[in-house]
């Protein structure tokens, strides 16, 4: 492993404590109109605790996100109260789609600082069924500048569209490349027990769906869903007596390029800004993109994973479209991507499900064939040992990435 910069060495020092994910949980996803936001969070907490072989009293830290339905400025402690916890560490993270990996980082920092030993990271919401009008407004306004973008009728989809269309122009990317991301992930979602969309779609079907904002058709866009997911972060020493084999966090990284899309300097600068998160996470882990077995890449739109694959160094600039069209992102391909279907086919809960799926992959538990009541199938990447996962908030504005490994960091 290359020696690395002082800050990379510091990150390695922390992760060498064997900081790991000891349990995961996910609820059904989709339209769940009979359960409220906190109810979903409590339900998935029970699932994750059971997965780890823990009880609620074993958890001394809680990291949550935010809700579009339950208006609280103290989300983590409101949930702690709801569940009857007295955590010694609590934080609510709110950086849009980058939130989930940042929750894991927050948990790691708390454990390293001795503030907590076992941290519940949980996010969920009934965004689809229960959203309030103020929540809807907040969601619509979140991405755009109130004076210099929103009054021009910009949508979030169109904001991504601006960047995607410039990317396609600069690199001569065909519309088929975007559609291939969706088609690939639809094959994976068909196997994932709780994916909202289970039908397999073709490149042609994606391109025939109605336009929303160029270059995106309806099927290029992510879902709006109800549901929850959770993961429990602790140390290898604590995880030793738990039920499941721990999955180690061996790399962490963040990258920022702009907040408002009109402030993005260029396609290259956006690629570099979000790419920094993944490149740095891999540097901390002491690996390269070629070492990865599986990639759970944030996919708010079909274009989103393309520029991330390039930023992370899986492909060269402008090459990800052809790479996906060649089938490299499929199960059985060079680097299977979004093996759960992602935000486009499974559900939208930021990057929570990307982390949960990566953990299941590295434990060898991504075969849902036994879940016959959900018509599950096998989406396991055989022998997967190393995964990258990321989330991006805003319009590729802020990115956080994790490298997860079935083995402890080499320095541990």
């Amino acid at each position, binding site marked *: 492993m290359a020696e690395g910069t002082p800050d990379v060495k510091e990150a390695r020092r922390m992760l060498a404590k064997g900081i790991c994910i000891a349990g995961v949980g996910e609820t059904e996803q989709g339209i769940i109109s009979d359960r409220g936001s906190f109810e979903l969070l409590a339900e998935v907490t029970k699932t994750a605790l059971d997965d780890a072989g823990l009880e609620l009293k074993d958890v001394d830290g809680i990291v949550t996100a935010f809700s579009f339905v339950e208006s609280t400025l103290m989300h983590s402690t409101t949930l702690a109260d709801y569940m009857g916890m007295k955590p010694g560490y609590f934080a609510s993270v709110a950086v849009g789609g980058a939130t989930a990996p940042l929750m894991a980082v927050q948990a790691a920092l708390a454990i390293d600082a001795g503030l907590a030993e076992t941290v519940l990271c949980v996010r969920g919401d009934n965004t689809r069924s229960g959203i309030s009008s103020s929540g809807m407004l907040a969601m619509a306004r979140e991405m755009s500048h109130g*004076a210099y973008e929103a009054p021009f*009728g*910009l949508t979030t989809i169109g904001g991504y569209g601006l960047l995607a*269309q410039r990317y396609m122009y600069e690199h001569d990317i065909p519309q088929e490349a975007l559609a291939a991301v969706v088609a690939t992930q639809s094959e994976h979602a068909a196997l994932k027990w709780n994916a909202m969309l289970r039908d397999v779609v073709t490149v042609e079907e994606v391109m025939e769906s109605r336009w929303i904002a160029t270059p995106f058709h309806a099927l290029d866009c992510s879902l709006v869903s109800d549901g929850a997911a959770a993961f429990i972060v602790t140390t290898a020493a604590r995880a030793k007596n738990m039920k499941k084999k721990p999955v180690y966090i061996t790399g962490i990284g963040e990258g920022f390029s702009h907040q408002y899309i*009109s402030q993005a300097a260029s396609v290259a600068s956006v690629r570099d800004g979000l790419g920094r998160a993944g490149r740095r996470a891999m540097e901390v882990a002491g690996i390269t993109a070629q070492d990865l077995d599986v990639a759970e890449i944030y996919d708010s739109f079909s274009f989103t994973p393309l520029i991330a694959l390039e930023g992370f160094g899986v492909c060269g600039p402008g090459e990800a479209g052809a790479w996906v069209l060649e089938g490299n992102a499929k199960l059985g391909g060079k680097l299977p991507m979004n093996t759960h279907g992602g935000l486009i086919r499974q559900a939208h809960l930021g990057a929570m499900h990307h982390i949960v799926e990566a953990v299941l992959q590295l434990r060898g538990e991504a075969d849902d064939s036994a879940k016959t009541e959900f018509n599950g199938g096998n989406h396991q990447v055989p022998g997967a040992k190393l995964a990258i996962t990321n989330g991006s908030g805003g319009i590729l504005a802020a990115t956080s990435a994790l490298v997860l490994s079935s083995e402890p960091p080499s320095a541990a």
Partner: protein
Amino acid sequence: MSEKPAYTKPLPDLRPEDATFWEALKEHRFIIPCDDAGKPFWYPRKYAPGTLSATSWMDATGNGTVYTYSTHFMGPSKAYKGDPPHIVALIDLEEGPRMMSILVKDEEGYPSLDPEDVTIGMKVKLVFDDVTDEVTMPRFTPAG
């Protein structure tokens, strides 16, 4: 001035530091902010991005080039229902900064330019669209 239907699209959220820009637009003058070295930037702020230096305003030509665009077939709110698609674009101004606007057919403002008439790299010029008695929106239309 021709009779226009009431404008129902969102109006800009204004902070105190935005007043000078929108007051100038109302007078059909287009100004952009610059830092203490005279380098223009976008969007308007009281302190210059990167240095937090003092800022001032400079006249801008309103000439620009389409950096990218996205044709919106669905607007962000009910106010857009039934409208033809609108084209949101990022415009590289001749002076350097890049700003967002929509592309319109002519100086009358809305409705939008025909999506088939837009290309990345096309030259555009700013037009003033008096959408209400108080607010003038900057729009761009094909140059020449």
